């Protein structure tokens, strides 16, 4: 690793950690299902950014890019299915509060 690459890694790491903390705090503090999904998205952004930064630092950009592309596509489907589930929960319970879906039957 060249000196510049190490510098870039040291700049990115604190911000990636901050982004992860924002996402985790958001998921833990909120009870709104849409907001929980937004928190998951923030955590995904941190993971995506860390993949690209490590790829750049280790001079292995093509591998990092291919992993990022796969991750983005999977992310879309996670969001689409989760959004569908949230809409169904809203239709059944009339709210998007996570406390309303605690009573499982079956």
């Amino acid at each position: 690793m060249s000196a510049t690459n190490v510098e870039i890694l040291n700049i990115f790491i604190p911000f990636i950690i901050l982004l992860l903390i924002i996402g985790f705090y958001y998921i833990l503090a909120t009870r709104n299902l849409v907001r929980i999904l937004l928190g998951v998205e923030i955590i995904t952004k941190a993971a995506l950014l860390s993949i690209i930064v490590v790829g750049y630092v280790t001079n292995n950009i093509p591998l990092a890019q291919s992993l990022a592309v796969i991750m983005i596509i999977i992310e879309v489907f996670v969001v689409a299915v989760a959004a569908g589930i949230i809409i169904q929960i809203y239709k059944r319970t009339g709210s998007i509060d996570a406390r309303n879906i605690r009573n499982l039957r079956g």
Partner: protein
Amino acid sequence: MNLILALLIILIIAALMVVFSSRLLLAAISLAVTSIMVTLLMFKLNSPIAAVFELSICAGLITVIFITTISFVKPVEQEDLVETRKKRIKKYVALPVILVIVGVVTKFVIKPMTLSLPAVIQETNVANVLWNLRQVDLLGQAIILLVGVFGIVVLFKEGQK
């Protein structure tokens, strides 16, 4: 280097806007801004293909999905909004404090990394990596696409009465 730092700061501000905005629509748009910042950082880190995917899918398609979902659920009344805003401030007041503490710790207490990694086998073409080296990942991706499609079809199917 300064541009990267500025983009990272805007990224954190946009992420905080997602958390602190009391309207869901504003939160979704702030998430799109976060995606745009990640895209610009990817361009700066010589990753144009991933950046284009991030911009078109995360900033475009996912924002559309979020806005559609928000339009399905009931909007908050104006009176409730003021009360919700007060509750939100109380709920998230600890977040900036935690962020400042963690930021100071990571910046000043933890020593900067000086590790050296071994050189990896170079493959310069992204398409070769994706189609030749990561075939198992693509198989998993195809399975997830199928599961996602079936999941959406099942979720939106009208129940039989």
